[in-house]
Every structure is written in C-alpha cells, then in structure tokens.
C-alpha cells in the first residue's frame, strides 16, 4: 500500500490549522489556549508560590511542576476516567522536562511554579499541544525564560514521512506507522523532547526531525503573536 494523500487532505509537511491565545484564565498568573486541528489544550500557570511538602523544596532554584490532564469527555472513544493515570504521569514528566531547559527559576529558591494542562478535546498530539500552551502561559506569567518551546509531532504513515499526525493517521492499519513527538527550542534548534512509538529508519527519522523543526519555527511565530496580541494595547506611553 502507498499512502498517497492524507486523510484530511493536508500536504505531508503541513500542520493542522493552529489557533493560540494568551490570558484566557482570569485567576491564573498566566494562561494560554492552544488548538491544533481538533486537539485543544488549556494551560494555567500559578506561582512562583510556596512549596510544600518541604522536602521537595530546592534551596538553589524553584521547581516546575506540570500536571497533564485529559478531560473525561475529550476523546472520540470511551470516556477517560478522571484523575491521573500512568499515562498522564509520564506525560506530565516529559512536558516538565521539555520546558525545564528554557525556564530560569534561580530567582525563586524553595518555591514552585505550577502548570496545569487541561485537554478538553483530543485528536492526537496532546503532549505537543500541551507544551505549546504551557510555554505561552509561562511567558504570560512573567517567568524568566530563554525562549518559547514549540512542539509538534512528526512520523511516518505507511511509506511517507509526515508531520502533525492526527488520530486517524496514528491508527492507520495498512502499513507501518511511527509517531514521534518533538519539542524544539526554536532559536537554537535544540531538541528538548523526543519520543517515539512505532518503527522508522534512520534516514526517515532525520527527515522527520528536520520537518518538525521547520514546523516548530512557524508554531513559535504563532505563540509570539498570541502573546503580543494580549499585550498589544499595553504599548504606548509608560510612566517610567
């Protein structure tokens, strides 16, 4: 079999339509909404704030604590049981590790920044959407960070290397599938998350990463735009 055309008619190196907004949750210190195709993520940042239990405190720097949560009604299939599970624990951890290289928490010893990622609608690529939303929300919360992390999944469907797989592609049955979520620090091109599910050759992997990096640059522009839009009217005169 040959995968000639993508199910939703996109080009092989084209992401789904993206929508991003900063400052969507009033009570949070920083928040963001990121939607890619039918996958949507809300991220809310609280803190830096006091960290208890005390043994988790780090006197040298603050810690980042990410909580990834898929809402019960989010999938297309069965209801997701509310609360954490093994998968969400893992994803919380990898998202935390993907964001950690850019945030600078040395100014906040013994404290914590909490990031809550909620997914009301999922159609594959949730951890990538979560990372994109979380980095906008962290910037919105005024956290010192080197760059905004952008993330997208790449992979292989049958014989084609594609970007931003949706659920139909992940579940493709007539050939091999590989799903590779990648998070990139766009300015430097460094990779802060790379996971893989499936099979892929070395050459195809290189190609997939290259495509993902290019897509992340575009996602980064959308993230920046979302932040600038929120503060656009804050421009102009300043008292200082």
């Amino acid at each position, binding site marked *: 079999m040959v995968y000639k055309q993508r199910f939703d008619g996109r080009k092989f190196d084209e992401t789904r339509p993206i929508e991003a907004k900063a400052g969507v949750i009033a009570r949070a210190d920083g928040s963001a909404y990121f939607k890619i195709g039918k996958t949507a993520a809300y991220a809310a940042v609280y803190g830096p704030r006091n960290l208890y239990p005390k043994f988790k405190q780090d006197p040298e720097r603050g810690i980042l604590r990410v909580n990834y949560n898929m809402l019960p009604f989010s999938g297309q299939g069965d209801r997701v049981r509310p609360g954490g599970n093994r998968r969400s624990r893992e994803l919380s951890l990898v998202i935390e590790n993907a964001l950690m290289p850019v945030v600078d928490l040395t100014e906040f010893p013994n404290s914590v920044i909490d990031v809550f990622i909620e997914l009301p609608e999922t159609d594959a690529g949730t951890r990538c959407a979560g990372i994109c939303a979380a980095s906008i929300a962290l910037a919105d919360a005024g956290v010192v960070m080197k760059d905004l992390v952008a993330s997208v999944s790449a992979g292989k469907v049958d014989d084609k290397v594609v970007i931003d797989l949706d659920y139909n592609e992940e579940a493709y049955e007539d050939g091999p599938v590989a799903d590779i979520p990648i998070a990139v620090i766009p300015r430097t091109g460094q990779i802060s998350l790379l996971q893989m599910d499936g099979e892929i050759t070395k050459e195809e992997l290189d190609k997939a990463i290259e495509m993902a990096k290019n897509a992340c640059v575009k996602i980064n522009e959308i*993230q920046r735009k979302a932040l600038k839009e929120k503060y656009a009217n804050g421009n102009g005169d300043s008292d200082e």
Partner: protein
Amino acid sequence: MSELIVKDKEIVVPGEELAAGLDFLPGIGTYRDGDKIVCAKLGLLHVDGRALKVISLSGQYNPKRGDTIIGKVIDVAFSGWRIDTNSAYPAMLSMKDGVSEFVVRGADLTKYYDIGDNIVVTIINVTSQKLIDVSMKGLGLRKLIGGRLIKVNPHKVPRIIGKQGSMVSMIKQSTDCRIMVGQNGVVWIQGTPENEIIAVNTIKKIEQESHVSGLTEKIKSYLEEITGKTLDSNAQSDHNNSGNENDSYEADHNSR
C-alpha cells in the same frame, strides 16, 4: 555595526532577538547569546543608552528592600509575626521592629497583631534565599482597621499612584476615601461604602487602561462624572492641606 532589531517601547516576548552587535549591553530581562541580545521575559523593551532592559507587565510581586507593602499576619511566632506578602515568600516581622514599647518575655503577641490583621510594613532586608524581614518603624506604617482590600497587578502600581501620587490623591479627593497602595499590589480603601465602590472601580479602571496616554485626564473626568464633584487641577497640594499626613507620605514614597 550594532543595531536594534526591535524598537524602543515595543512588546517583546522570550526568545525574541532585540539587538545585534556588541555595542549594546544586556540588562534586566535579557541575555546575550553570541553577538545577539535576546529577550528573556515578556514585557516592554526599554532602551537606556546602551543597555537594553525589559519592563515586566505581568507576574508576581518580587520583594525588594525599601518597598512599602500591605501584608497580612498569617502566624504569630515566639518573638514576632509571619506576614503574607502577596508573593512566593512570607516575611518575618520581629518584635523589635513591630512594636515600640517594651514587651516582657513570653507576653501574648496577639494583643499587638493577631492572625488575619492587615498591616502596612516596609521591607528592610531580602536575602538570597528570599527570607524577608519587614519593619513597622517609619511614617505611615500601621495596622489597618476597617476598610477593604483589593489586589491589583503589582506592575501597575506606579500607574495607580501616578506622578508624585497625583492619581491616588485625585481618587482620595473625589471619594473622600483613605487609600493606601502597597508595592505588592494590595490596595486598602476606607470610606463610606458607596465611595469605596467608586474608588475600587476607578482603581480597576486604571489597572485595565494603564497603557492609555492621558490617563490622568480621563480618570479625572470619569471621577467628576460619577461623584459630580469638580476636581481642582492641582490635587496634590490640596491633598496635603487636608491633614492626612500618613497617606500622602505613602503616595510620595511609592511613586519613586
């Protein structure tokens, strides 16, 4: 061959390149990467000669020495009080800095300040580990009784106070409220309930429209419309004559 990539006073986001070349220096909220200066914090770019810095627009209050803040007593310890500062770290108010009279060993400290009391304090020291010491020795530092507290974005506090306290004294004059603005974004307002509401709404309006130019004039006409009182243009001097020394000191002090 150095040049600015972004214009002065523009919104910048983390990862955005601000300037190229070694003639510019990275200030607060920026870092150098190779020959580029890159933004590290969301905010407004401020070009100060050769130095580039980013003025924050969001985020929590960051305690600094010399700030006057409104804190809440959250614990009574052996020889002092623990104060919530509306930041990530609580502050300590020692007995020595809290009360002027002699306190016998083992005396009940709750008769001075009890849990839940709101007090105006200045920060006298912040360590690298963010242990904060506060004091109540100074003009206008006292326990707040009555009134209401609201929280605002701490980065908008200079706007609420205005130049030489012009904005806050204008609100005081037209609403007859006593107002204290803490650098940590906590504002205390006391007056008649109707006037308190007007003051709260005005402060919220200032917070929301802090970027508008000519805001002082706009707020002035807004207040005049609501209260029906004409404000004289030199609100500050009039205020000083009203005899409320503590509060005017507060405004001056904060607008620095």
